[in-house]
């Protein structure tokens, strides 16, 4: 057999294998033995040893898995029950393999604290992850600030949040705005203006993902202000048309609104026709809004 013929045969076989592979993917269902949701190594100590001298790369792999797991759960179809079961173990493994992996602590805490169904709604785990980061790098003021953020936003524990901001402010290299923020949080915790101040500072961060997260929170705060304004209009409509269902079209037709109001992501606000309750729609990027922040005084 000539060399050219051998090469051609090899290329042909490879092409046939690729075609068969593609056809199998399309037509033949694979037996359900592949379980990507399984985490074979759960012990961070074992993972650390098994990685030999390659802990950093292993941490990167677990970090990418954590992001993918979070994204897959969050974007899963409505019928799927989102559990985020692997999120904390993956983040724990990542940060044990690489104890200085700053983004894994900070972004991981955002993931963990996120309210269900957009996240597991586990602020306790978010705080534990950040405390682990502080144990590795006790002078990292950003971690302490983030602990304060979790207390503020997710747990609504403004006293603890203020204490964390105060501690973060005392750490080397901390920005000057942290100390006044601690005071504002303690004095006016729970008020949208103090929350806005916190997120306006975070929106100046050098980390793009932290900026994006803070911008989302600011957009949520704006939406809450808008909902307060809209509520006045719907209440006016209810007073004018007692007992009638409230819809945006009807409120607009009554001349109380120029049209269907949209939130900053371009999705109409959800209005309950019976009660007149207003919130952001489930399809909105702003969903869900945090519950209890008070309107500006």
């Amino acid at each position, binding site marked *: 057999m000539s060399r050219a013929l051998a090469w051609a045969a090899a290329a042909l076989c490879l092409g046939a294998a690729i075609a068969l592979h593609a056809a199998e993917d399309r037509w033949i269902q694979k037996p359900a033995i592949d379980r990507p949701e399984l985490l074979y190594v759960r012990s961070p100590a074992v993972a650390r*040893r098994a990685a*030999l*001298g*390659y*802990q*950093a*790369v292993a*941490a*990167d792999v677990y*970090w*990418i898995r954590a*992001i*993918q797991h979070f994204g897959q759960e969050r974007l899963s179809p409505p019928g799927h029950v989102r559990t985020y079961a692997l999120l904390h173990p993956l983040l724990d493994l990542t940060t044990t393999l*690489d104890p*200085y992996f*700053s*983004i894994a602590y900070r*972004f991981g805490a955002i993931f963990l604290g996120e309210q269900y169904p957009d996240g597991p709604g586990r602020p306790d785990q978010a705080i534990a992850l950040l405390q682990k980061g502080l144990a590795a790098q006790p002078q990292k003021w950003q971690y302490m600030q983030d602990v304060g953020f979790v207390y503020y936003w997710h747990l609504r524990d403004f006293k603890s949040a203020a204490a964390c901001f105060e501690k973060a402010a005392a750490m080397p290299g901390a920005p000057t705005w942290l100390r006044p923020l601690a005071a504002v949080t303690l004095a006016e915790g729970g008020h949208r203006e103090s929350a806005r101040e916190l997120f306006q500072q975070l929106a100046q*961060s*050098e*980390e*793009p*993902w932290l900026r994006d997260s803070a911008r989302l929170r600011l957009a949520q705060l704006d939406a809450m202000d808008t909902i307060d304004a809209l509520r006045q209009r719907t209440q006016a409509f209810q007073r004018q048309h007692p007992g009638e269902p409230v819809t945006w079209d009807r409120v607009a037709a009554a001349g109380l609104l120029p049209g269907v109001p949209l939130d900053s992501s371009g999705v109409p606000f959800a209005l309950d026709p019976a009660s007149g309750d207003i919130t952001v729609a489930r399809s909105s990027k702003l969903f869900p809004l945090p519950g209890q922040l008070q309107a500006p005084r």
Partner: protein
Amino acid sequence: MKTIASVALAVFRESVRDRVFYNLVLFAVLLVGASILIGQLTAGQDVKIIKDVGLAATSLFGLFIAIFVGINLVSKEVERRSVYPLFAKPIRRSEFIVGKYLGLLLTLLANMVVMAVALYAVLFFLSRGVPANIQSAWDAPALDPALLKAIALIYVDLALVTAIAVLFSTYSSPMLSAVFTIGIYVAGQFNTDLRRFDQIVSSPAAAAIGRVCYYVLPDFSRFDVKLAVVHGIPVPAAYVLAAAAYAAIYIAALLFGATVIFSRRDFK
């Protein structure tokens, strides 16, 4: 000295002939591929992850060369019977061993220089155009010269692995030499655990054995500063020098041992 250099150059030429440097192409493809993919998969950690991947690949590719070329260095010559005419010439066995060893080190050095240049090139392209305020949030600059410390210690690590492979190559088959070398490399990674063995076991004898193993086995974890360098944690020059000195002494012991074993073999 001239004899050692001649043997070393012959090993280097043989590596080129054996297409050992093909791995560099694989390394370059891995790095470029990773840099394209990683941007899509991670949350703005491209530079950190490329550094991790680059350093790990440098170490891993070098490790494969050190082990799989190292274990054949001497045994292949014996198997081919090419040592017989060689020792008819005025060449000492110690010169043969050291020459072979240095030849492989030269191969590894050429390999690592190209890998380091490729890593810096990918990091340069990745960080180009990134605003200064975003770069300031990185633990260390993209083109951090401290990466060279990690690369230097990877080289020292590989030099030690090569010496172990050469030692086994002088009296054992290539397969067994590979098993022994990999075994010692893995055991050497757990040295820190052996040091603390007395905290786990209650038997003083077991604790003493653990401590002896800790000192006798090469401490490979000493050469791993990849994590520190990637996160911009300072690695003092004194630490690098001390680790290199430790490796040099250990390598000398292994090469002396290899020479003694090889000298006792009968090639008449």
